[in-house]
């Protein structure tokens, strides 16, 4: 289940995301960012291509930032809309994922980058939670 909410940020945009474990947190964060940016994420392309992505970080927070930035990169550099996120492997702050993508004729995202601002993955009674600020 996806679980996120947008939170107030004066200049940029921010959201709080939860997951019952790290894999769920990463997948939900990707969905959350797509939803936040969703008004532009339109494509009529029927062909779905599955891409394999490998991302690593020095800790959980940097893995989270690098993962989300990778999704932005696919859109901004390759004009791909990412629709489904499946993390197949997660070990030592390194993940292997499959992402279903469709081509679009332009960049839809208005997010420039994902930041580390006050980023901390916290344990809660239901799993993990993080607040993520993105630069727009």
């Amino acid at each position, binding site marked *: 289940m996806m679980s996120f909410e947008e939170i107030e940020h004066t200049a940029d945009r921010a959201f709080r995301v939860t997951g019952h474990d790290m894999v769920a947190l990463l997948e939900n964060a990707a969905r959350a960012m797509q939803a936040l940016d969703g*008004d532009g994420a339109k494509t009529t392309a029927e062909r779905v291509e599955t891409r394999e992505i490998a991302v690593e970080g020095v800790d959980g927070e940097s893995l989270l930032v690098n993962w989300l930035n990778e999704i932005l990169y696919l859109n901004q550099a390759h004009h791909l809309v990412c629709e489904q996120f499946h993390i197949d492997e997660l070990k030592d702050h390194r993940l292997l994922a499959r992402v279903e993508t469709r081509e679009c004729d332009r960049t839809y995202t208005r997010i420039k980058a994902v930041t580390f601002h006050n980023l901390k993955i916290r344990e809660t009674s239901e799993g993990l939670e993080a607040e993520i600020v993105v630069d727009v």
Partner: protein
Amino acid sequence: MRVPARLYADEDLLDAALLDNSIVQLVNTATLPGVIQYAIAMPDIHQGYGFPIGGVVATRLPEGVISPGGVGYDINCGVRLLALLVSAKEVRPYLEDIASRLYANCPSGVGAHGQLHLSNTKMDQVLHEGSCWMSGQGYTSCDDLDRTEEFGRIPGADAAFVSDRARERGRNQLGTLGAGNHFIEVDRVAEVYDGATAVRLGIYEDNVAVQIHCGSRGLGHQICEDYVGRFQKTARDYGIELPDRELVCVPFDSNDGQEYFRAMACAANFAFANRQLLAHLIRGSFGEVLAGKIKDFELHQVYDIAHNMAKVEEHELNGRSVRVCVHRKGATRAFGPGSSVLPDDLRDLGQPVLIPGSMGTASHVLIGTRAAMQQTFGSTCHGAGRVMSRARARKMVSGTALREQLRSRGILICAGSMSGLAEEAPAAYKDVSRVVEVVHKLGIGRKIARLEPLAVIKG
């Protein structure tokens, strides 16, 4: 905190600053290793990430740090002002056509592509030479380089420290506006406060002027991302502990610091080149509409300034000259009269400073002052400063209604995204005139002229 924090504001602007986390962010910047005098915030301060927007921090070299997060993702986001010797009254009948041509000729949106596709060789040339490369391609007019901060080329750029991914993201983006708060705006010079200085800058009351607000596009975003990511580990190796990971930094004179600085300079040069090409496209757009209808409609450059940058500068502190790395995040260089880095014809005057307002409100032209050199490392404010979140602005404002409302006031709006337009509603910003009044009264910028919008092309 290693030094105190200092905020320039009046009572209302201070109240606005207390509404979000700006002040906490300001205090955090006062913990950067090597920071000197005080961490400074301008009256347009608002919450950013890492640094507050409107923040100025100088670190003493060689031991002080450089912080990529302190510069931000849009490296050398800045403003360029072009002015015409033609009145708004003469241009108004053609305004709708001009706005359409600007919208068509100057691509907008985060990943928008322009007309130039840069090979690796040409990309290196742009990254090293900035606006000077554009000059070789015939994209500049006579005074453009002299009227650009650092003459349109930051020294020290080395493309060897720019990643393939950054090049890829920037390859097609020269001459594009981007998104967020970026814009091209056609203005009328509504009021001149200092006629003698305004004439020196080519600014006359009731004439038309054009502002460009944008930066280094995907290339700059990627360079910041590359180094903020890499320094998450590197900073620990230097034993640097910070209250916010986005402030991550390394010693300026270390190999790591130098690599970032040289890559940042590349992004800064890319941004100068980007605004240069946009200026060329704007001149072409005016030509398409006005040729044969109005005489002498050339657009001469008043100035081009950066407001997200880290720069090596010499400043006087307690009677001694010190070499510092000045981080300006949402703050503008505002060098006063006598500064040796200004072009000959501006040296006695000081550096022009361009302060865009929010959409539909005034913008201001200021001049740098000696007081700014003494108090703020030659810096002043950069704009109105947000006061409302984007989420709340979208809930409170309809982009379509806002466009019609501005049209009824004689302001044309061209925008690709209505929700993006709503986020930039004037109600989401502080009163820019109030911000400018504070810096004027405190002497860290002197008012020269006020501009009012006629047409806005939104990124």
